[in-house]
């Protein structure tokens, strides 16, 4: 009973964590403005940026996953407690974006990390990111109800 209740309300308190997998900073600036500039307020969805991966629920990944940071990114991803939802931000994680075909990038990211939501754009509009976060919340809620959110 109580578990059901918590499963229902948990997606109303998502804590965001920005994971930079070698992005050009364009996406990161866009992500930061979504929360920091009063005009685009994600706190109304209950979101909060957290500094530590241990506190995170929704992982916002930006950048094409360069070879240099690949192992570190995978390690940080493992440090995030279940249940977690991932959101890939920008064209880079999907295809490599402007870095496509470079020998230093390992995109697409979902060879390494399961990606739940993709927000394309270079960089994406803040509105698109907010919609992506809302979509991630829906996925999180569905998974909690189905009970498929535990550690695999």
């Amino acid at each position, binding site marked *: 009973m109580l*578990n059901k209740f*918590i*499963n229902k*309300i*948990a997606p*109303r*308190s998502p*804590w965001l964590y920005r994971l930079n997998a070698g992005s050009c900073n364009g996406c990161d600036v866009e992500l930061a403005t979504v929360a920091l500039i*009063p005009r685009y*307020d994600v*706190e*109304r969805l*209950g979101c*909060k*940026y*957290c*500094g*530590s991966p*241990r*506190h995170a*629920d929704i992982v916002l990944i930006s950048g094409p996953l360069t070879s240099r940071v690949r192992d570190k990114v995978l390690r940080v991803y493992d*440090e995030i*407690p*279940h*249940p977690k939802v991932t959101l890939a931000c920008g064209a880079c994680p999907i295809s490599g974006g402007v870095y496509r075909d470079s020998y230093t990038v390992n995109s697409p990211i979902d060879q390494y990390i399961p990606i739940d939501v993709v927000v394309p754009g270079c960089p994406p509009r803040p509105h698109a990111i907010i919609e992506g976060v809302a979509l991630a919340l829906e996925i999180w809620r569905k998974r*909690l109800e189905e009970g498929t959110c535990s*550690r695999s």
Partner: protein
Amino acid sequence: MTSFFEATFAMFIFPGGLFALAAGLMLKGVDRKAVARLQRRVGPPLYQPALDVLKLTIKETLIPHTANEVAFKLAPVLGLSGVLLTAAVMPIGGVWNGVTGMKDLLVLLYLLPVPAMALMIAGSASSSPYGALGFSREMVVMFAYEMPLIASFLAVAVRVGGTGSGMFALDNIINYQMQHGPMIFDPIMLPAFVAMLLFIPGTMGSGLFDIPEAEPEVIEGPLLEYSGPLLAMFQLMSAVKLVVVVELVVALFMPNGLGGNVLVNLVWHLFKCLALMLVAVTVFRASTGRLRLEQGFAFFVKYTSPLALVSLGLAYMLR
């Protein structure tokens, strides 16, 4: 036997326990909402902190394998029980006089640093370099704000002018203010009141004094390695701590009720707490950045402590 029941009731239900938890989560929610409104955002709902805590209970608990597991798990328990005990001892003017045998300012002086201690243990037990940095920062800030706290305590005690072991009795302090009007209208005590107003953000780590848990620098400091239910306990601890420090200032400087009715007095007390929190935490947090560690330390040593000491000196001379 009655005092046993009284103490249990105080610990688990009324001034501590459920009441303090509910009030703390509510105050935190109002704080977040008010900051959002000050920044012209919509902001989260008022019950957002409660949602956060509930959500954390279903998260996985990760413990770093280099951490000292016992201390790592014990720190949040220690902190939460410490603040709940402090909340139980805190008297509410016109409603609750405190548990028999525990009405003493010195008890509060010993109990108030417990949450900071818990954070220090947490930071050092997590075996993370950022945790260690947070630990040392927490310690330095604590040393800085203890001084004005003690000086303000002494100033109030001297002004009330009890003798012997009654000097620090909380009921003396409250009775004195019931008869002579609240301390906040006493020109001598105003500097001490201002010092206590600055102590609140100092101990809560908000605004200028967000030094130990600075997110961009030491990524949440002592709380860095915590996740799941243990982090939820730290969240509850910080919520109850907010109630405790605000109630402390209310008890020392303006405990007066609005007449004999207990319920009216309770609402009035909550209103005072809310107003005090809005001034000392919310507006302060929304309108200031963060100081560097040594600047924060110097702020307390140079400006806040002298304010409290002025009150103490004046109270001594005029007693």
